[in-house]
């Protein structure tokens, strides 16, 4: 039976190839999308948590949109709250990358307090001093092939790379907070204020004091922020479901169509199988095995394509792609499951054919 299945699949190389590509397409779709979302979230999560703060004080903040909404006058007020150690205001701006694929976050920082809190240091060059100075982390410098002295276009202004910092923390590219305020015409505003508790103070106690002193604002422990990233961005999760649905439909239809044409073409052969005493179950199995062979090939091709795409994307864009084993498994299950489901109707139809009629089919 194995040889019959393999022979059948080989009989129509073009159709088999198209079906395999169809299944692979679904697999790639699911893996790449999940990989991009995971990559982005994990990347942000690790960089966010390396800011070194205990608390984030903010007014209006979401993981996907940023702007300068919080007055910086809170900085001195926060410093007055007992138990608060270091305070550092940060402005965030989401900017499209030059390639137009994806986006990156630009941060405006107050270098002295920020570097003290996060422990970043300038590896090459100098810290931010001039208005048009920018510092980038090593990953950015490596990916974009820039060094100290190179210029970077930000808001169609030529910024000069003053220094390269390490380790990565927060956004990969930072300018002075005052420059960002000026460019965005939001003087004296930032996106959030990072806080570190003084030695020996518990985060919860300090948070309670801040909430009491400065109500109407939000305060989030950085631990919670990490968990927020882990749960994922709701909009992306919904979109991921749509992508999975699409992948299922593509695999299902491709296999349904391929197997349907196959059984129509091979009506007589199904009659022969029946004349040889093959049961309905046997015929369903032959057709499902054929579909399985195509689906497995499609999944493998999909894996190969996804890995190649990942390499390409990470090389040519600033996007991070993480192909998690969990999502590889899901993609395989989606490709194979929907393929087998798609083959079921043709298989059952073939199995129920009248033997004598099938035998006289031209």
């Amino acid at each position, binding site marked *: 039976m194995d040889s019959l299945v393999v*022979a059948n699949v080989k009989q129509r190389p073009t159709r088999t190839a198209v079906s395999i590509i169809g299944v692979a397409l679904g697999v790639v779709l699911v893996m790449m999308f999940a990989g991009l979302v995971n990559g982005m979230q994990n990347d942000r999560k690790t960089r966010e948590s390396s800011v070194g703060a205990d608390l984030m004080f903010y007014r209006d903040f979401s993981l996907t949109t940023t702007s300068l909404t919080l007055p910086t006058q809170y900085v001195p007020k926060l410093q007055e709250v007992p138990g608060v150690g270091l305070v550092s205001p940060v402005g965030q701006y989401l900017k499209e990358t030059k390639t137009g694929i994806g986006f990156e976050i630009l941060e405006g920082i107050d270098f002295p307090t920020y570097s003290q809190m996060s422990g970043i240091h300038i590896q090459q060059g100098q810290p931010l001093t001039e208005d048009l100075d920018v510092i980038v982390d090593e990953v950015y410098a490596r990916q974009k092939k820039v060094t100290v002295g190179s210029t970077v276009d930000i808001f169609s202004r030529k910024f000069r790379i003053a220094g390269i910092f390490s380790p990565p923390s927060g956004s990969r590219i930072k300018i002075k907070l005052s420059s960002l305020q000026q460019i965005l015409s939001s003087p004296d505003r930032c996106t959030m204020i990072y806080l570190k508790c003084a030695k020996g103070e518990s985060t919860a106690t300090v948070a309670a004091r801040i909430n009491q002193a400065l109500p109407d604002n939000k305060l989030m422990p950085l631990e919670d922020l990490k968990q927020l990233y882990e749960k994922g961005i709701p909009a992306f999760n919904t979109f991921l479901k749509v992508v999975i649905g699409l992948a299922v439909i593509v695999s299902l239809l491709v296999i349904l169509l391929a197997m349907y044409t196959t059984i129509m073409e091979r009506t007589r052969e199904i009659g022969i199988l029946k004349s040889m005493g093959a049961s309905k179950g046997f015929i369903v199995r032959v057709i499902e095995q054929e579909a399985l062979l195509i689906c497995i090939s499609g999944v493998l091709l999909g894996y190969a394509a996804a890995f190649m795409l990942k390499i390409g994307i990470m090389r040519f864009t600033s996007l991070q792609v993480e192909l998690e084993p969990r999502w590889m498994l899901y993609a395989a299950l989606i490709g194979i499951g929907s393929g087998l489901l798609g083959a079921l109707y043709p298989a059952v139809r073939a199995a129920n054919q009248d033997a004598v009629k099938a*035998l006289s089919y031209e």
Partner: protein
Amino acid sequence: MKTIVQALNVAMTYRVGKIDVPALRGVNLEIQEGEFVSIMGQSGSGKSTLLHILGGLLKPTSGNVVIDGEDLASVTDAQRTDIRRRKIGIVFQRFNLFPTLTAEGNIKLAEYIRHSGSVRDHAEEEKRRRHILKLLKLEDRLHHKPIELSGGEQQRVALARAIINHPAILLADEPTGNLDSENSQIVLDMLTRLNTELGQTVIMITHNAEAAEVGQRLIRMKDGKVLDSRVLRHNFETTEEIVSARK
């Protein structure tokens, strides 16, 4: 002797749209184990219909068909399929080989289907396969696909495939209908050999009177009924005698 096929009052009516087409109108038949029976009759007399019923491919409208002790008419479709798998081998005018498989692949597929779900004795299968391939002179044709074989060779592969599992009966619907006289002769000789050397019960439909002579008995059909049944020969001992007697 053991009765291997018994048909009692078998009637078959096809329904085409709203019209009933009677194909068999009460066929009675008894065939003994080891017999070689030829069936002749005008086109449309119901020969193929009868063969399909004996092979369990069709369910008769009424009547009983017992093959090797199992009643085909009173069982479910699935059971009929199972009886066919265990007891029946069929060859057709069109050889009906799987074009994508080699001769050997076709034969092994039959073995696979026969033994699906049961324990296989590969050594025993191998022995029988070799014996049959030798008998049908197919040993050096095993790795050829149907398209690379002559019509006669293809029909011999089909014969091998039909009897590889030791069926109680071998049904043949005009097995030489698509062959030239030389190849027809070879296939008829092979059928005779299977009958005499393996004791295979054979029921063969033919339009050719000469071909019909190969059988021990000739059943003639007309208008969906058995017209008569005539014994052609009795006591031939060996294939050689039969073959030479025919010349």
